[in-house]
């Protein structure tokens, strides 16, 4: 169990850039140690991506649970967030001190623009997977596209309650897709 904690602390420390970075790191650690088979790991990732919560935390919880039940799930996810706790708290206090310095202002200027590029990238990738397939030639999923339009209108009407639109998306998906 100590190893489980240490391995996930290591993963937490080297996950720079979110869940998609955590997954290959966890794969390397748990498969090479023979904790979990590669095939099982991939089905865990699929489930982790389709359930609520940050993907990395979901995978960590799953691996921990498979190994030692509920205590394992707790240890893996706590180990995962521990390094963030220390580093992010330190960054927060440094940020308060130096936010208005010339250097930090310019860092943020470009990091923020890069994040806009990143959000655009995620948006493109997701739309490509669900609505437009471009693997060989452009192929449009019309049912999905129509539902995307309908949900956009619902979202506009229910702006204050995005979680309600998520539930509606699930229900409409079950009916039409």
């Amino acid at each position, binding site marked *: 169990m100590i190893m489980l904690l240490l391995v996930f602390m290591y993963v937490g420390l*080297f*996950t*720079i*850039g*979110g*869940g998609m*970075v*955590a997954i290959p790191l966890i794969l390397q650690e748990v498969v090479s140690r023979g904790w979990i088979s590669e095939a099982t790991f991939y089905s865990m990732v699929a*489930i982790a*991506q*389709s*359930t*609520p*919560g*940050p993907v*990395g*935390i979901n995978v960590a*919880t*799953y691996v921990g649970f498979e190994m030692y039940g509920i205590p394992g*799930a707790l240890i893996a*996810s706590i180990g995962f*967030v521990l390094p*963030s*706790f220390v*580093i*992010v*708290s330190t960054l*927060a206090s440094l*940020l308060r001190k130096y936010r208005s310095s*010339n*250097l930090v202002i*310019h*860092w*943020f200027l*470009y*990091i*923020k*623009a*890069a*994040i806009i*590029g*990143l*959000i*655009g*990238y*995620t948006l*493109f990738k*997701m739309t490509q997977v*669900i609505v437009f397939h471009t693997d060989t030639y452009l192929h449009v999923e019309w049912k999905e596209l129509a539902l995307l339009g309908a*949900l956009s209108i619902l*979202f506009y009407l229910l702006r204050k309650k*995005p*979680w309600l639109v*998520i539930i*509606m*998306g*699930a229900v409409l*998906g*079950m009916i*039409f897709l």
Partner: protein
Amino acid sequence: MVSILQIFLVFLKIGAFTFGGGLAMIPVIKREIVDKGWINEDELSDYIAVGQTAPGMIAVNIAILVGTHLRKWKGAVAAVLGVILPSLVVITVIASFLSEFDSIPLVQAALKGIMLVVVILLAFALFDIGKKAITNVYLLAYALVCFSLLYFFSIPTSLVILFSVLVGSVHAYIVYRKQVKK
């Protein structure tokens, strides 16, 4: 002052309705936290930038930053517990009862429907945050360059962020030199 319980509950809601990674969470955070007046939009965009740059999950990092902002370390602990609790519960339940959860057709259809909503959420986030972050043509061009690096060249996000720090440093140095000359 915002109570510890309120922080926990709001992040519980955020954790429960985050599908498909940390960035999808941003619009939900904005509605739950900025619209309540707990932090302002500039602070949120700072926290997103730090959360993305620091190691760990973005969702968790933002929870730590917002929690610390509101109620020091107690707030951070409450926010993190809130954001990871839905994962712990949902995954534990699924792992104990179902092994082939994602291969059930009805589940797949529901997930596709949810993904469509996530696409809409992300599109709104893009414009919402974009308005604040992109203040001139050069930054717009820079955002497009980053998009291309990620999309066409599959450069890892961490390198793109590191590159941004570098470009920012160079820009800061140029500004510094100009001030010195004056």
